[in-house]
């Protein structure tokens, strides 16, 4: 969900772009972190851990903790908390370490 009214902050309407998550079309704000767009669409499971396949989500939001690694445009281990969203991105929930080759 996005904040509409806030006593201090204003969030002007911004350009929306379309991307896909596991093939499903989702809209987000161009340039915002992919994780923010996913949260706005109420999607919180970003990957599954490599040993016990536990769901993992966003934790630090500043590119520090590696909790939010996803596969973006075929490249695994992208920190989606700091990766800016662009139109047409193909985002996938990452399983384990991701396919490197």
């Amino acid at each position: 969900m996005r904040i509409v009214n806030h006593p201090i902050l204003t969030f002007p309407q911004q350009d929306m772009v379309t991307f896909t998550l596991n093939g499903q079309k989702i809209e987000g704000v161009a340039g915002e972190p992919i994780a923010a767009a996913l949260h706005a669409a109420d999607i919180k499971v970003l990957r599954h851990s490599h040993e016990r396949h536990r769901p993992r989500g966003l934790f630090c939001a500043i590119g520090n903790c590696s909790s939010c690694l996803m596969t973006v445009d075929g490249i695994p281990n992208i920190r989606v908390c700091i990766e800016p969203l662009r139109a047409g991105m193909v985002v996938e929930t990452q399983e384990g370490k991701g396919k490197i080759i």
Partner: protein
Amino acid sequence: MITTEILVIGAGPAGLMAAIHAAEAGARVLLVERADRLGGQLIKQTHKFFGSKAEFAGERGMDIAEKLINWSSDVSGITIWKNAVVLGIYPDGVVTISHEGAFCTARPKKIIIATGASEKTMAFPNNDLPGIYGAGAVQTLMNVHGVLPAKRILMIGAGNIGVIVAYQLLQAGVEVAGIVEAAPQVGGYRVHAAKLQRHGVPIYTSHSIQLAHGDSCLEGVTISKLDEKWQPIAGSEQYIAVDGLCLAVGLSPLTELLWQAGCEMKFAGELGGYVPLRDANMKTTHENIYVAGDVSGVEEASAAMVEGKLAGLYVASVLGHKKDSFTKEFQTAKSQLAALRSGPASVKICTGLSKVVLEEVG
């Protein structure tokens, strides 16, 4: 190879102030920031700061960030690189940097490390469930990007960050189910805690989280009361249904570059973990490396700004850029820092500092 007099690593409150003051004294500065914007964590602080006028008291953190960013772009002598990650500091003085994805090398005469801190987590079953965030992540999502982290959140930790972020959650329209604090009293500013109580947010002192529940995402948590030895009291468990849990349990300094460069480090729990030994001029045990801000011990952003100013002024002076007003400005900054650390809330910080601040050199 890029040559510069001073390399400042990190453009949060400490790094910006260091770069500005060094450049104003006449030094050439390269300021590198790993994020795609400047300001560090100030940009998500919607609350007004305390302190004195010199540290922008009464202004919101995000407005202070804007002032510092504008100031840094107005000063000649600062080159600013965003999306620039420092990879290594080598024994011959070469620093390797990934800038906009390109590999670069620099050879600065002096380095000021102002890399800040990262959030701590807590050990409890299921602490990795999606929906469990660091307090800073919650601020980034809602205050920078305008996205709500959850509908109903429980806050862990009633220190300054806990009470401030809990209030910011209310402002953003999130229901705050309560604040859980292991200590018998609220550690954060009373003014913020009082605001929360006026909004009917329960503060569970002498309580801690026992475990989180949920299959793919957080659905609730179990908290229990602690006895005077901080052990959970059997039978006191209570379940709170929430889709968000916010951990405000402290920060640890981001010291990787200092370790790598061989600076002598010491553990000071009061300052968040391992921090570099340094003198009162912010110089580490490495001849050319200085520190400022949370990387040298976690404190408020106000202290980080003053430390940045001290480091910037001092390093510039070492390189021969000494303003006429140097002595006065430097002493004033030192007094400001002492004043910031004079309150009862700073006793812990001062204990930590007494372990890591070396005798003043020179």
